[in-house]
């Protein structure tokens, strides 16, 4: 009897197909269960219109973020009812244009975009320091306009966006601005070099690791990191584990309907910790 090709198995019974690989400790594209695809980060790719930008890719998922600082007046900040650093000094826009995936439709903000935006705002809240935005106290402040695009989607968008955000923040350089004698108008001081935005230390920067859990039977489960598009569909549940290098701040959020147990959480936490350590070390060595 002829055996069917494996693409047929994948189409007809994707979970069985996937299970067969996991049981041997490997995934269909050859990676081990906690192995990441190629991570690349390119800072400063957009130079004409924004002051800080970065282009990050994990495997074939690509995210592009540009940060443009603007000057706003104190009364605009007071007008708004936001009390957090984010509301006052940053505005984040995340877009998933139709380019990235065959199922994204233009005109409607996708759910994934909203999730990513929320996560980026949460992260900025943790990283930025409020007093680094002041130009003239009670008059002029910096406002960062952060715009993010996903150019290609192949699973694990949130980590790619986070990577791009960190790259853009590290790339961002604010010009030195002086006010004239009456304090009304500002002037750019081009003789002085541009300064970087002051933020909290790198080891306190949070990182998220989406961990996928695949149940094969009530007693058997597999914990998988860095899910690609196909794998995300097969997972029973996906947990986003937030942590930083120091290990003192932890948050969890769950996506998809599967079950969780303490053992799974422990496994996920350990795998996530190892990965976060690796990523943060790479950042620190770059800086």
């Amino acid at each position, binding site marked *: 009897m002829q055996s069917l*090709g*494996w*693409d047929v198995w*994948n189409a007809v019974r994707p979970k069985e197909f996937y299970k067969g690989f996991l049981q041997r400790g490997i995934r*269909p*594209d*050859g990676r081990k269960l906690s192995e990441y695809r190629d991570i690349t980060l390119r800072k400063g790719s*957009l*130079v*004409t*219109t*924004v002051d800080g*930008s970065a282009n990050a890719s994990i*495997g*074939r*998922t*690509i995210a*592009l973020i*540009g940060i*443009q*600082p*603007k*000057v*706003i*007046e104190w009364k605009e900040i007071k007008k708004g009812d936001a009390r957090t650093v984010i509301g006052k000094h940053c505005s984040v*826009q995340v*877009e998933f*244009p*139709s*380019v*990235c*995936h*065959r199922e994204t*439709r*233009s*005109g409607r*903000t996708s759910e994934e975009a909203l999730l990513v935006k929320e996560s980026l705002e949460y992260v900025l809240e943790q990283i930025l320091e409020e007093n680094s935005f002041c130009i003239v106290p009670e008059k*002029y402040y910096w406002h960062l*306009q952060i*715009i993010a*695009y996903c*150019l*290609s*989607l*192949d699973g694990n968008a949130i980590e790619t966006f986070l990577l791009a955000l960190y790259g853009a923040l590290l790339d961002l350089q604010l*010009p030195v*601005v002086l006010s*004239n004698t009456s304090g009304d*108008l*500002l*002037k*750019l001081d081009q003789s002085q070099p541009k300064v970087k935005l002051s933020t909290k230390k790198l080891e306190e920067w949070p990182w998220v690791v989406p961990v996928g859990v695949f149940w094969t039977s009530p007693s058997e489960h597999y914990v998988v990191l860095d899910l*690609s*598009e*196909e794998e995300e569909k097969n997972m029973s549940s996906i947990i986003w584990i937030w942590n930083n290098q120091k290990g003192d701040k932890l948050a969890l959020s769950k996506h998809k309907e599967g079950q969780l147990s303490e053992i799974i959480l422990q496994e996920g936490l350990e795998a996530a910790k190892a990965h976060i350590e690796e990523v943060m070390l790479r950042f620190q060595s770059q800086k």
Partner: protein
Amino acid sequence: MERISQRYGPFFEPTDWLETKYKRERPNNAPRPLVLNTGTIADAAGSGYVELGKTKVIVAVYGPRPPIRARAGVENAMSGRITCEVVKSSFCYYSCESAKIPSRGFSEEERLLSIRLIRVFEPIVILDKYPKNSIDLFVVLLEDDGSAMAAMTLATSLALADASIELLSLVSSATVAVSTKHEYLVDPDRIESENAVGLITVSLPLHAAQLCEIQHNGKLSVEDWLSTVQLAVEVAQTIGNSISQFLLQESKNKETYPLSS
């Protein structure tokens, strides 16, 4: 460094208009350095990425697939259809005031660009081979530093070739601007385009003796027009040769991918 005050906000003292000191660094008839890439978008049938100097465009081709928005009568159509959606990212807008608000659908400019792109490629793609199907082009203009339409056409050619869609020929495109001093500037950047008297973009299928599209902005005398178009056609021919060489190389490097991912 130009228009610094507009970049950071309206509260700055007026400075000298730095653009009068702008000087073109390359010779008048040299196009900018070109970067080409295909296959960057995972899910698309084909994708192309072009950098013309600092202008960056990425194009994805999805299809041939059943049309998403089926209009009446499209089921009985015996030839395919091309649709196009252009997105100008917020990084194309220099001044902070005119930044784009993403939730309002497509702006007029984006719709105009999509219509133009369809006009270029409708005679080129052999639609009779794809009945009842639609070929969808999605374009993101990442950064606009002049000759955006030319970059978009080049990227779309690459993407269609990468998607193995049947074309009559590859299309290459070039822009030439006529400055106030009556110079012919090939592949102008944003400042040159804005200060030009006339701007002509030409789209040229490489294996035909005809042009598929000419786009003209500004005022030009007839002789100027003819010489600009001729110059643009020559430049487009050279750029087109680089594209075909690049695609040949890519096809040699392509191995059959394993079925896993």
